[in-house]
């Protein structure tokens, strides 16, 4: 499943890093900012409280000073009991002089009668005799020495209070009307910041004094303001923060208050929240700017860091991609000293291994190709050899036939026939050898190993080759032995036959020995000769097919150089080890190692083929090719058989309708794709399944052949040697019908 690979790692890392750092910065900045805000407000309120306190002290002091002045006068006048009006007037005028805030002063005698009134604005009045005994000022002063009255307005716009002072309950009382504009002057000294005001309210919330005198003259009532209300109502000293303090215009303010207990007033200092917090907001703006800067720095740092982190990963990715695309020589060079470097190294190792594998594969391919080339070479050699060797007998054959035609009936005819026969034999042998080789290569040769005595086999071989050896003047002997071996007798015979053929062929003079030797669990069958030997440079190739060490020595009788190749294959099929030693000029020794077997009492010796009489046998020949059919008919007739020669299945059925043939010889492949097997089966159905049938075919390996073989019919291959053919027919007629026995006879 293809995966979508995008190059987002860098941005992911950057986003993560920058995001984290920025979040931390924002969080810390936010928290810091919040606390700074709270602290600034607290600091500002503390400052205001301090101002309020000091202003309250000043006002209290102011009032106290007025009262003290009054008390001083009261004291002074009390001492002189009988004080005249003039002295009184002087004292009061002096009081007015010293206390600019006092607009009017009255002297009330101890019994409550007004004795003198001195004013700045209106006419002084002496001895008005007015009864002031019920005045709260009079009473208050007599009771508590000092008295401060409530706020009142003169002429609607001027705030005044009455202060009264007296020494004791039985003394005269001094009452003064105090113009509160002078308190405003005290307040004006409060160091007010921008948009900061200080003012005093009485216990009802009415404005008594203000940095802006106009507000006082306007008779403002501030009792509606939350901070005023709270300040008036609170009974303790502790300042309770009023969060929704507002000024009369409704703007939020920071407020602090302080009671002026002497008069029941409250001093308040207010500053617009915006102004009070301006520096805080400025610092928060700075923090925000720094934060922004920090975030920018974080992003830059993240970009750089992400790049550093991603680079080795990208290198590995690129390297892996190249390796994946087949460039196995690419190596990843990542030196980060950590897991990434290890990863890169792993990739490199993988690439190395892949490279090695590829190289090995290529080497093997090269080897195979070489093998193929060698095989090709073999094929070429074979074709060369075959075409040469096949042509020879063919050529000779052609010539002989021509010659025969020319001199049919002449006394040379039999000799020519013999030569023709020999050529045919040679061809047949060649083709046999080829067939065997190809069959062995295909693994189409079954092995049937069993225990048997080897001596009879050796004797028979020696007997067969005796005439040839004798004709060449060679001594061929076999050493008798009682050893038993476990092998396939037919195939072992074939091996020894080939070895002997070679021995005889390549020995000019001397002897050839065939014998056995016991070797522990094995038996070595030895074929030794005193022949020309095989040179060391030929030794490694000697078992190769079509290899002939000295082609000129082959001579008549042919040989495609397949003998030893067949031997080798058969030996490996039977799992017999073959060793060959040879000294040029001295001879050659070939050993075949066979597994030893225990001797058995009832042995069934390999039967030698016996020739029997075929006269009177009815043979059915089915072959669509006329020459082959005629040739076979001729041969069979010579042997004494009665022959029915047909070209196809229908004809065969027709011919044998009346008579049951003794033996059927059928070609596997007939005209029009007709199968010989079908024909045979029809015949079997017609004549009963006991019909003796055999196939003759030119095909060596095909499905038809294996079908026929597996059906149990013996098969003879064209060109079939007459002797073999005869043996087959004899077997079909006389011997048991088992395919195994027939096969043994064929071989």
């Amino acid at each position, binding site marked *: 499943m293809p995966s979508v690979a995008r190059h987002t790692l860098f941005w992911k890392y950057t986003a993560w890093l920058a995001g984290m750092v920025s979040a931390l910065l924002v969080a810390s900045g936010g928290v810091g900012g919040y606390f700074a805000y709270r602290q600034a407000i607290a600091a500002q309120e503390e400052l205001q409280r301090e101002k309020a306190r000091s202003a309250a002290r000043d006002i209290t002091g102011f009032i106290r000073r007025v009262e003290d002045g009054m008390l001083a006068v009261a004291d002074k006048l009390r001492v002189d009991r009988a004080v005249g009006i003039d002295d009184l007037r002087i004292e009061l005028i002096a009081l007015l002089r010293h206390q600019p805030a006092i607009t009017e002063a009255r002297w009330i005698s101890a019994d409550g009668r007004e004795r003198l009134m001195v004013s700045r604005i209106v*006419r002084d009045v002496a001895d008005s005799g007015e009864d002031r005994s019920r005045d709260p000022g009079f009473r208050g002063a007599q009771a508590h020495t000092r008295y401060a009255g409530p706020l009142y307005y003169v002429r609607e716009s*001027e705030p005044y209070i009455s202060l009264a002072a007296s020494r004791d309950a039985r003394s005269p009382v001094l009452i003064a009307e105090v113009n509160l504009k002078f308190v405003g002057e005290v307040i004006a000294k409060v160091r007010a910041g921008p948009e900061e005001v200080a003012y005093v309210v009485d216990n009802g919330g009415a404005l008594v004094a203000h940095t802006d005198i*106009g507000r006082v*003259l*306007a008779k403002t009532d501030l009792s509606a303001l939350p901070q005023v209300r709270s300040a008036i109502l609170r009974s303790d000293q502790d300042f309770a923060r009023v969060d929704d303090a507002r000024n009369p215009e409704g703007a939020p303010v920071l407020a602090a208050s302080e009671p002026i207990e002497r008069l029941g007033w409250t001093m308040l200092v207010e500053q617009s929240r915006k102004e009070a917090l301006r520096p805080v907001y400025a*610092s928060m703006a700075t923090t925000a700017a720094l934060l922004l800067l920090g975030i920018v720095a974080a992003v830059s740092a993240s970009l750089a860091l992400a790049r550093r982190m991603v680079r080795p990963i990208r290198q590995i990715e690129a390297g892996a991609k190249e390796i994946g695309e087949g460039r196995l020589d690419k190596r990843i060079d990542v030196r980060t000293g950590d897991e990434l470097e290890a990863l890169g190294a792993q990739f490199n190792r993988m690439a190395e291994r892949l490279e090695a594998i590829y190289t090995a594969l290529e080497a093997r391919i090269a080897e195979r190709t070489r093998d193929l080339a060698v095989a090709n070479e073999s094929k070429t050699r074979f074709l060369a050899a075959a075409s040469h060797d096949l042509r020879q007998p063919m050529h000779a054959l052609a010539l002989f036939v021509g010659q025969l035609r020319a001199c049919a009936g002449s006394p040379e005819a039999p000799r020519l026939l013999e030569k023709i026969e020999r050529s045919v034999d040679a061809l047949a042998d060649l083709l046999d050898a080829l067939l065997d080789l190809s069959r062995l290569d295909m693994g189409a040769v079954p092995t049937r190993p069993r225990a048997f005595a080897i001596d009879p086999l050796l004797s028979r071989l020696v007997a067969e080759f005796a005439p040839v050896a004798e004709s060449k003047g060679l001594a061929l002997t076999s050493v008798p032995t009682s050893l038993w071996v476990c092998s396939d007798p037919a195939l072992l015979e074939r091996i020894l036959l080939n070895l002997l053929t070679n021995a005889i062929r390549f020995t000019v003079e001397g002897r050839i020995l065939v014998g056995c030797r016991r070797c522990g669990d094995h038996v070595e069958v030895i074929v030794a000769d005193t022949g020309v030997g095989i040179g060391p440079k030929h030794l490694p190739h000697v078992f190769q097919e079509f290899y002939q060490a000295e082609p000129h020595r082959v001579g008549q009788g042919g040989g495609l150089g397949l003998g030893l190749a067949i031997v080798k294959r058969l030996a490996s099929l039977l799992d017999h080890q073959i060793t060959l030693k040879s000294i040029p000029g001295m001879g050659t020794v070939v050993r075949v190692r066979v597994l030893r077997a225990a001797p058995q009492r009832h042995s069934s010796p390999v039967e030698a083929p016996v020739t029997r009489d075929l006269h009177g046998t009815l043979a059915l020949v089915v072959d669509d090719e006329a020459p082959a059919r005629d040739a076979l008919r001729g041969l069979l007739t010579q042997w004494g058989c009665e022959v029915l020669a047909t070209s196809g299945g229908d004809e065969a059925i027709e011919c044998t309708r009346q008579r049951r043939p003794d033996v059927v010889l059928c070609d596997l492949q007939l005209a029009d794709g007709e199968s010989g097997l079908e024909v045979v089966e029809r015949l079997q159905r017609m004549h009963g399944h006991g019909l003796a049938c055999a196939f003759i075919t030119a095909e060596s390996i095909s499905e038809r052949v294996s079908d026929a073989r597996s059906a149990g019919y013996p098969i003879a291959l064209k060109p079939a040697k007459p002797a073999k053919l005869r043996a087959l027919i004899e077997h079909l007629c006389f011997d048991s019908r088992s395919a195994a026995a027939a096969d043994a006879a064929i071989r």
Partner: protein
Amino acid sequence: MSHRRAFVRGLAAGLVIAPFPVAAIPHGAARRVGWLHLGRPWSLNPVRDALKELGWIEGRNLIIDTRFADNEIDRLPALAAELVALKVDVIVTQSTPAAIAAKNATTVIPIVMAGSSNPEWLGLVASLAHPGGNVTGVTNSPGGGFGPKVIQLLKEAAPRVSRLAVLDREGAGGSPWQEMEAATPPLGVTVLRTPANTHAEVSRALASALRQRADGLYIPANPVNTAEERLLAEFALTHRLPAICGAKEFVAAGMLMSYWASWAAIRRQAVVYIDKILRGANPGDLPVERPSKFELAINLSTARSLRLTIPQTLMLRADELFD
């Protein structure tokens, strides 16, 4: 985190240490103040100084245009119109006629009265507490009961005064003599009415005073009287009349006494109004102030020449003594 703490500390320290001025220096286009005065030209330097304290510096953010009528009332309307044409930001009037002329010249440009009598009665303001219109400022009317006070003071200095000529304008805040006539019997003084509504009438009033055998003079501060300072002082001296008036300058010129609202205090207060209005306050919302400081001035050499002994009570009260 440490820089944050340092910030806050610095903040708190700055708030405590830095002495903020009462008002920050204003910025923006220069403001124009028009000063309209009935009387003679004067330097206005105390006004300039007071404005500078509040952040208004002439030449930088302040321009002062002055118009003086030189005691000619008829010139005031034209002068007021000139100031209006100059598009001043505020007109300050010195003396009541100037205030009236300014009010007639504009109902938009704010007007600050640096002393006027009975602005309510004159219709300059709706009420002292809430003026309402474009006029506000300081009135120098102390309110009722002042006349008798002044007479009492004169009587203290010159006890033998029994027939007091009061030189005042008619129709200015009702009849000025009525209150005094009601209050003076206890003082043992007969009030003689000698009205002088214009400059021309001053001499006639004085002649009338002589004819009525006045042995004392009360010359309240009003624009007419203020203009005739020299004439009145000389008259008082020539005819050896103890006189009390409403201007320190008269006493310096030879009159015996004066008791009136302190011009310095009024001027100072007017500057506060100017500052407030220049900073955007609405004149209609600024209450009119009354004077709270009154000054007593005595000319001792005049007292000596009139063979008067100033009693201790008066001496105590006196704010300024001329010799």
